[in-house]
């Protein structure tokens, strides 16, 4: 069975989706099915991660060899992403049982689990596929289920948030499709490795430039890179808590991985970063994203919106690292992908606990709750310090890697933006702390509110402890990130 691991990685969650719909009358069973999907995906990811050291694994779908059929490729550059997505999925699954039960009505809860399975399938498929058009298909699966999940938020704004994401997301996906079309027209193939081979003969081909531009602009929408980030705050802010926990930690990260995959192993670093100014543009946008995202986060009144804006800034850090196109930069980007996923997952999870308790996550409502909900707020503070980048948190480790990569490359303006953004992060995390501990609780706060469910607190703290561990001992994520950078920058093909 081990030969089938790359396929099983995607197929088990895929099969769980129809099962969820079939078993919709038994809500707990549908939850169990999703948990099973997440656990099996974690098991596959771990097994795969231990196997890629000997070289990339290829799986030929339908038994057709690579350029004729579709192949799955697992290598050093995507195992970290598989691990991140799977771990977050397991945590989100544990977290979801009570959270979804509280925020979504009973009849729709099974549909939430179905959609979560579908999103997981889409993200995993997007990560392992070695075919550009297949990547588009998985991109659409994950997007379409995401739209449905966001629309299930409790407030009516969730509907518009979902619709706007649908429109801009579809335009983005269609841009990717146009890019794929141009690349296909000048090479005649869709397989990533085959494309990379054939592109080397096409120096100065303008259709190829357009392919790069359209694929990257389309992916930038999914990554929420600065000018195309507009959908993200409302989408994450309005989605049900379990969903925003999962999406914030996993979805943009996978899009970033796909960007890396296209940039380094399909189009090639020479074309993307030397011939075309993608690196420079990426650094500029990243710097803007850091400043705008952090600044906007300071002015939010809702904790979930604040966290979402902070994500825009944090994506800026990741993009900055990757845009350097050096081993240190890419490794820093990957490290921050891992660390930020863990941190943001924990933070959105904590925000969900507040929603469960208070019915909202507005900062004004948090007044004086620090002592009432010590576990929740301790989690927020610990991971919040990670966002700022205070040593010895995980955020510090990846920010340090990023800063040294930027120093090596001499990208001073970006460095300034990183520092400014960190200061602003201090401000917005400070606002949460100030509201929770240094304000008086409203007099009419009922004393006997329901306690936060153990499963949710445990899920959040699992991520918190993971982030603390990664801060103290960065060898595991650091090793994965270095291996990924080596795999991406190494031979160029997979």
């Amino acid at each position, binding site marked *: 069975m081990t030969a*089938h691991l790359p*396929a099983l990685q995607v*197929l088990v969650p*895929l*099969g769980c*989706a*129809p*099962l969820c*719909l*079939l078993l919709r009358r038994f809500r707990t069973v549908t939850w169990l099915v999703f948990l099973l999907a997440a656990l099996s995906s974690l098991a596959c990811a771990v097994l795969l991660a231990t196997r890629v050291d000997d070289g990339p694994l290829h*799986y*030929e*779908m*339908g*038994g*057709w060899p690579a*350029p*004729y*059929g*579709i192949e799955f490729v697992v290598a050093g550059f995507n195992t970290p992403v598989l691990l991140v997505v799977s771990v977050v999925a397991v945590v989100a699954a544990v977290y979801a049982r009570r959270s979804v039960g509280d925020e979504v009505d009973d*009849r*729709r809860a099974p*549909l*939430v689990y*179905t*959609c979560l399975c*579908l999103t997981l*399938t889409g993200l995993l*498929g997007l990560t392992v596929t070695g075919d550009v*058009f*297949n990547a588009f*298909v*998985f991109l*659409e*699966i994950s997007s*379409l*289920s995401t*739209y*449905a999940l966001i*629309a*299930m938020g409790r407030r009516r704004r969730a509907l518009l948030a979902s619709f706007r994401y649908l429109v801009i997301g579809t335009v983005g996906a269609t841009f990717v499709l*146009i890019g794929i079309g*141009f690349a*296909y*027209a*000048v*090479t*005649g*193939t869709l397989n990533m490795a085959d494309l990379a081979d*054939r592109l080397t003969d096409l120096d100065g*081909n*303008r*259709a*190829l*430039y*357009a*392919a790069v*531009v*359209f694929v990257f602009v389309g992916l930038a929408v999914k990554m929420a890179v600065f000018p195309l980030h507009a959908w993200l705050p409302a989408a994450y802010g309005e989605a049900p808590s379990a969903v925003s926990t999962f999406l914030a930690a996993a979805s943009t990260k996978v899009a970033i991985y796909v960007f890396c995959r296209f940039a380094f192993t399909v189009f090639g670093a020479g074309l993307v970063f030397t011939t075309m100014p993608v690196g420079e543009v990426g650094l500029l946008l990243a710097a803007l994203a850091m400043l705008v995202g952090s600044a906007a986060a300071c002015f939010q009144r809702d904790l979930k919106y604040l966290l979402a804006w902070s994500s825009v800034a944090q994506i800026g850090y990741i993009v900055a690292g990757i845009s350097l196109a050096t081993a240190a930069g890419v490794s820093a980007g990957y490290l921050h992908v891992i660390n930020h996923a863990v941190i943001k997952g924990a933070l959105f999870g904590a925000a969900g606990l507040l929603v469960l308790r208070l019915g909202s996550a507005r900062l004004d409502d948090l007044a004086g709750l620090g002592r009432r909900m010590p576990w929740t707020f301790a989690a927020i503070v610990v991971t919040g310090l990670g966002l700022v980048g205070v040593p010895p948190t995980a955020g510090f480790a990846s920010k340090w890697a990023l800063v040294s990569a930027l120093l090596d490359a001499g990208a001073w303006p970006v460095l300034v933006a990183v520092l400014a953004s960190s200061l602003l992060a201090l401000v917005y995390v400070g606002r949460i702390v100030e509201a929770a501990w240094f304000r008086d609780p409203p007099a009419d706060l009922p004393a006997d509110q329901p306690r936060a469910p153990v499963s949710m607190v445990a899920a959040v703290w699992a991520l918190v402890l993971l982030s603390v561990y990664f801060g103290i001992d960065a060898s595991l994520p650091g090793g994965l990130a270095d291996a990924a950078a080596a795999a991406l920058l190494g031979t160029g093909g997979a």
Partner: protein
Amino acid sequence: MTVFTLINISLLAILVATALTVSRLRALYEAAMLSALFSLVTACLFVLLDAVDVAFTEAAVGVGISTVLLLGGLALTRSREAVTPRRRRLPGAAVAILAGGTLVYASQDLPAFGSADSPVQRHPLTDTYLHQSQEDIGIPNTVTSVLASYRGLDTLGELLVVFTAGVAVLALLGPLAHPVDARRRDDLDLVDYRVLRVISAMLMPFILLFALYVLFHGDFGPGGGFQAGVIFAAGFVLYGLVFGLDKAQQVVPRVVLWALIPFGLLLYLGVGVVNMLLGGSFLDYDTLSSDPAAGQHLGILLVESAIGITVAAVMTTVFFSFANRRATR
């Protein structure tokens, strides 16, 4: 200027003119109707460009399902658009000009239209799909063999997208409500049209038969599981429109539909899993029989049926969800 070029230019001009008119019309019902016309022209162009399978799908989806859904959505919302204010026009125009400029600039290095010497045609894929497939799979319609076998995973993904859409619409518009009898009188005047009812009743068996034909003839001509599923759904839609939703839902009960949606997907997946158990890789139909070509035939047939089941069930469910929303309002 060959005959082909002339026809091609005429159709493209018609298409662009229609698109312009659709974009300018503020009456949305009319815009939706013209977008049906737009789909018809598109489908003609697909025929002209030798993409008969795509033309088949575009006709069934664009003219049939999309139009019905669009009209159904319009019936539940306002049908007239507000004037687009000036300040909104600029960003759209800027993006369009920028993107269009990039495309035109890049198109200079695209291979000439219709060239037999383009990278696409020179790639070994061409020979494999057109000629080698005749030996490996033995189905004349190479689109079907590429769709269901060489790129079977894409098709599974496509089915998953359809499934996702069904789940999403169910989640958004709620489980099918029981139709309310007290419907607005003027909504259902079609019941008065005796001619329409008689003709539709006559057509029904023919439509379902045609759908089955399309499903099983997909190996030799245009058609296949997806198209068949859409035609089935179009048949149910027609029935629901003419005879009322209540009757349509008696014919195809909700429970059945909801069971069929996951069933098709599981069948597709099941075929792949059986291949794995028999020692091949996922969707390697060769393993289904001692003769690889026979295995491929069987696999493709099963997979196409699976697609047909899920697609028909999803499309019908989606239509009922929209239509019921209206009845219960």
